[in-house]
């Protein structure tokens, strides 16, 4: 007998004859239809994210990056990038070149107000997972229609068949005396630019 059949057989024997269970309740909050953008800003800031509320994305990025070199995903709207910034478009760049960049700029798939979370789903304006991981600075541009109030509403919008990265604040650890320390392996600085304008793909 192979291990698959052995394990499944053991499980079936273990639960044989059990009484049926009541239905799983779902009486928790799904969250408000309209997200509270101020709450998102507050919760992002709570975990050390630098938040910019502006409609001039390029100016905000210029202020953050200066003249550094940034990795950008292939589908990033070109007008987001200020002229002074040197953009390195990820068309399958070698890992060390991504790691050597000063920062990365991406869009997001969803932002969750209640938890101060942004979620990337690797669509062309967000790119491969590793580009938002290796540079030490990550700038995300969030549009109001991408914000949801709660975790349940975020899952409603996300496609499980895409690689998903949920990000809540910069990389951190609580491994030393259970105090949160920002900055371990992921980007140590995270900026969110929250615009009022809708996303223009």
């Amino acid at each position, binding site marked *: *007998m192979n*291990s*698959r059949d052995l*394990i*499944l*057989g*053991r*499980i*079936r*024997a*273990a*639960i044989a004859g*059990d009484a*049926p269970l*009541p239905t*799983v*309740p*779902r*009486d*928790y*909050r799904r969250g408000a239809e309209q997200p509270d953008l101020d709450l998102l800003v507050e*919760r992002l800031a*709570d*975990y050390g994210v630098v938040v910019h509320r502006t409609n001039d994305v390029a100016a905000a990025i210029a202020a953050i990056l200066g003249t550094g070199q940034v990795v950008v995903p292939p589908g990033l709207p070109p007008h987001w990038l200020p002229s002074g910034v040197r953009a390195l478009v990820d068309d*399958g760049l070698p*890992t060390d070149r991504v*790691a050597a960049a000063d920062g990365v700029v991406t869009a997001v798939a969803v932002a969750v107000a209640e*938890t*101060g979370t942004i979620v990337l789903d690797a669509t062309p304006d967000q790119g*491969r*997972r*590793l580009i938002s*991981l290796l540079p030490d600075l990550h700038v995300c541009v969030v549009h109001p229609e991408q914000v949801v109030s709660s*975790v*349940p509403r975020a*899952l409603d919008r996300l496609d*499980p*068949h*895409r*690689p*998903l*990265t*949920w*990000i*809540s604040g910069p*990389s*951190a*650890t*609580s*491994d*030393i*005396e*259970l*105090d949160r*320390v*920002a*900055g*371990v*392996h992921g*980007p140590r600085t995270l900026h969110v630019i929250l615009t009022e304008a809708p996303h223009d793909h």
Partner: protein
Amino acid sequence: MTFLGMPARAPRGVGNLRGDESFPDAARTALADPQLRRNLRHATTTIRGKTDRVTAELPDWQELRAVGAALKAYTMAHLPELLERLEERVTAAGGTVHWAADANEANRIVTELVRATGQQRVIKVKSMATQEIGLNEALAAAGIQPVETDLAELIVQLGRDRPSHILVPAIHRNRAEIREIFLREMPGVDPALTDDPPALAAAARRYLRETFLSTPVAVSGANFAVAETGTLAVVESEGNGRMCLTLPETLITVMGIEKVVPRWRDLEVFLQLLPRASTGERMNPYTSMWTGVTAGDGPQAFHLVLLDNGRSAVLADPVGRSALHCIRCSACLNVCPVYERAGGHAYGSVYPGPIGAVLSPQLTGVEDNASLPYASSLCGACFDACPVKIDIPAILVHLRNTAPHPRSERAAMAAAAYTMDRPVLYAAAQRAARLARIVGRRGRGLPPPLSGWTASRDLPDPPSQTFRDWWAAR
């Protein structure tokens, strides 16, 4: 040939589920270490405060707990179908699923998969399942170097130590001790390293960066696997998880069979429960989700190893099985007065604290961890803290009923029950006990096992009259 009716426990001689000493003996050593006591008190007090704040913030925390419990019960009742569905979905998405009946088989599968890549080093994300089966030891024996990349696991690995907490394996170390370990063991470390936590974290970042970029095989655990979609999820903080899950060419995930969840939307419950109960955050810094392999992004070879190692035996016990509902948040450790004082090593298993006291004996068979069900005052704080409402005290009481009992205790308990079922004998025994105490030395020096009491506590002076004598004379 294994007989299906016999529960198959985690085998002896492999893995880290059994300690060398009984809990009381191991605890005695820990209790005498003032630095350890201080580290544990500080860490558990800090995390309790954070968890209390972020759980109080959610008006539906109790509803979420109840749903989490119901989802886990549903999962256990449908485990065969859910695992088959998971296998089908992962395979359809380009992954390969392996089934491991026990620790030995899981170690063999992973070792062979690594060998097939030709690599001699793997990077690892913190994983309780691989600790449980002793994967690092097995890989090392095969000439493969496992590198732990979680900061706390790195501290433990560099310090040739053992983990003592589910979430924070180096909770027993403070910043000064961690600095010392880094200075002694970390190649290329800056000799001017301070004990400032950001400096210590930065040292780990520098040390591991090159390893992340140059190691093409990773081993991880999984927090959740969605049967409906084949999606796996790893919840972490530092980004080492993201490194291991996205940079290598080959990813091998070892997961206990109980970690499967039925539907995609079920994650909306667990992703609210786990971070708040675990690190006391509204959301942990990073959660990675992936379904099979994605062309051009992340590992192009994905293996999922489904591990039994005693879990089906736990499932066979209708009272004890809810220990399998555990989502490894470690909230029960952080509120446990026994854990706070004795620390994680006293439990002898990778699963310490209240959940370990019910899980380890069930995975191994209670005779191999006979002292663990007694390592609790049954104060109930763990039950209140558990995000999926596992009634740990009730399971402890249940396991004590099946644990081997010392012969003298068995006799004393039977005699006591016999007497207490006979009021006349009982009243006579009450008077006899009083007389014995009056003629003996008051309050001290009882014989074993009661000497455990009188070592640190006086007994009250016996009353001149029992209540029932007073009532009768009234």
